[in-house]
């Protein structure tokens, strides 16, 4: 196994998507873009989840980065690469700072502490008139290394840009998960004391995870800000946003770095049609789906795909 088959699979999928983007209708491309953003955050949750930690506050990094994009944009920065990288890095830095505190907590305490931090961000954003208060801020269309596409070309370029970012994130996480540090993941979940006796610092391992996770959520928020062209506290930093990420993570399963993105696509499609056909009922449909997933496919969509593939291999 010299080549990682996940990396091969992901590469093929990304290339196919990149070709497909020229032929799909605009609204489908938009779903794709939103899925990339939400998928990146869910990927961040996956990194934590494998250690048994659930964050109910990833909207903190997501919103922080989205507002970073909006504010930089208002200062006149238009380049997508600069916007996304600077904002996501700022989120990573924020995660590093908060990490010193949250790394000491586990389970429900960890979940609630992260949520508390995200609600602080929400409060600050909603009350500050300079940040647009609850109305939020508009974002001018980005440029890409000097290239300034308009209309449909803008969306296609952004899609390809997003794909590039997401591809990088998946590769990065895959490499991390296969490294020694990444392998500690399960070890920490199973028995922290033994990990300490092996000579590793559990807090250190968790801190690194938290930073990676915050960074990923930051990338998600930045992509979302560019894809939608609008940031506001309710969509970006309220605890329901964090809830959606957890929803996607549950829907997807933690089996593979590609899973969060498949989960995100599924989530966006369900929401899309629920909103369209059940104006009053869309929340019920979303909730029902989640319930069904937890009851019937507790390991998420990825486990279903895996089972399908295994069955075929078995027949052979």
């Amino acid at each position, binding site marked *: 196994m010299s080549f990682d088959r996940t990396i091969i*699979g992901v590469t093929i999928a990304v290339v196919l998507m990149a070709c497909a983007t020229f032929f799909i209708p605009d609204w489908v491309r938009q779903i794709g873009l939103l899925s990339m953003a939400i998928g990146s955050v869910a990927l961040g949750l996956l990194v934590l989840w494998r250690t048994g930690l659930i964050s109910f506050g990833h909207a903190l990094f997501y919103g922080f980065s989205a507002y970073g994009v909006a504010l930089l944009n208002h200062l006149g920065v238009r380049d997508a690469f600069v916007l996304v990288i600077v904002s996501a890095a700022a989120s990573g830095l924020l995660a590093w700072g908060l990490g010193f505190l949250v790394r000491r907590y586990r389970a429900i305490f960890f979940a609630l502490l992260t949520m508390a931090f995200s609600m602080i961000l929400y409060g600050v954003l909603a009350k500050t008139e300079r940040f647009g208060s*609850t109305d*939020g801020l508009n974002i001018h269309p980005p440029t890409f290394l000097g290239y300034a596409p308009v209309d449909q070309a803008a969306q296609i370029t952004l899609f390809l840009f997003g794909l590039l970012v997401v591809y990088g994130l998946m590769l990065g996480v895959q490499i991390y998960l296969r490294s020694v540090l990444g392998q500690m993941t399960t070890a920490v979940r199973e028995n922290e004391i033994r990990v300490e006796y092996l000579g590793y610092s559990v807090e250190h391992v968790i801190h690194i995870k938290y930073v990676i996770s915050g960074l990923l959520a930051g990338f998600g928020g930045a992509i979302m800000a560019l894809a939608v062209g609008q940031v506001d506290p309710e*969509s970006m930093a309220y605890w329901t946003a964090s809830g959606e990420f957890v929803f996607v993570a549950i829907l997807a399963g933690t089996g593979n770095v590609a899973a969060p993105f498949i989960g995100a696509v599924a989530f966006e499609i369900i929401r899309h049609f629920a909103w369209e056909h059940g104006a009053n009922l*869309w929340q019920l449909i979303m909730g029902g789906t989640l319930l069904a997933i937890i009851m019937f496919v507790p390991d998420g969509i990825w486990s279903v795909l895996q089972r399908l593939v295994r069955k075929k291999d078995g027949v052979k």
Partner: protein
Amino acid sequence: MKHRALRLAAVGVAAVLTTFGVAVGNAVAKDKMVIAVPTFLTGGGAPAFGIPARNGTELIIQAINKGQVPAPYNTKGIAGAQVEAIIYDESGGGAKQVTEYRNKVQKLGVDMFAGFVSSGTCAAVTAVAEELKTLTLYSTCGTPRVFEELDKNPKYVFRTMSHATADGVSLAHYVASKYGSANGYTGINQNYAWGQDSWRDFDLAMKVLAPKIKGSTKGQWPKIFAGRYGAEISALLKSPEDLVHTSFWGGDLEAFIFQGLARGLFKKKQFLMSVAGTAAYRLGKKLPTGIVLGSRGPYGIYANQLIDTPMVKWFNNAYVNRYGTQPTQPSYQYAQAILGAKFAYEKAAAANGGKWPSTDQVIAALEGATFQGVATEVRMARSNGHQGVTDHAWGVASFDKELGLPVVSDVMHFKGDCIMPPDGMDSVTWLKGGMKGAKCD
């Protein structure tokens, strides 16, 4: 092993493509007209705004299709086309609404939008409306920022009523003439864009119109959807000012009224409630007597009680018969926006030799025009003819036991040109500069 990864990727991509592929065929047929109508169908904005707005929309569209609306709208359909409304949920925040807006245009191919309750949503979708070149009539959302800051050269976006500055200014006029001897005013407003803007406009207008009545700097700023106001009510009871301004709405307003009633707040203070019109019929007998109550214009209770035109009579009767309750402000405003659409399309079609007009022709027909809404005349007289100017009314609420309905008395009417900034002038600059150019007779 490699094959497995390949196959897995293929299954994933195929699944995605099939789902999309199946869905593409759903686009709406083009032989009728489709209007997307966003309003709050779920969440805190639904009972007071979303549901009356939806009801008003359904009522007016059905009547338009049957040709039952009184003159000048007594022809069937809009420029001959039957109208279908796609009423959808406005909740979830600006970013989600931008996505929904895109979907309605790019997937369902709607002809236009009419609606939007929240300023936040309007601020969010303005840019995408211009980008997607889709005619959009804002019926209700109040923020002046839409044309003053976000979209200074609007082409596809219109608003068919006065913006929120008119609420603050007309209320200040009312206070100046009815409560000139008051010793001061304070406020309780939700700490978010609408609350902050409402207080700012009222406060600035009071400084111009009634400089003797001093504004407090210690207003109360509870969180939106806070729901519990014990501490704020105590602070208000202790404050020295006679008058209290509030732009509370929806569930917050009703919760505040119930909690305030229990402590005699509305007997001790004269309340100025800028959007309490939406709660009047819901509260009924529990509506505090003597509060100054606004409906963001001559809508809702003001139209139901005071306007005697065939149009309002028809609308009120049809609404009460169908829904068993009186129409409120959002019902009127949504119907007003849809009548604006009917007006613009038919004017454009007439200019186009009776053929279905292009969006550009409809825009040309509506820019700067004057049309009749349900309760008031709408003059598209600001922001290059994209911002409506409508009249306003204020009065004092009480409950009429014989009618079994809340009523307003001591009503004053204000002309749009008296309470809206002149064309090309920014609201805050206008207020701070002493409201020059206001035409009040």
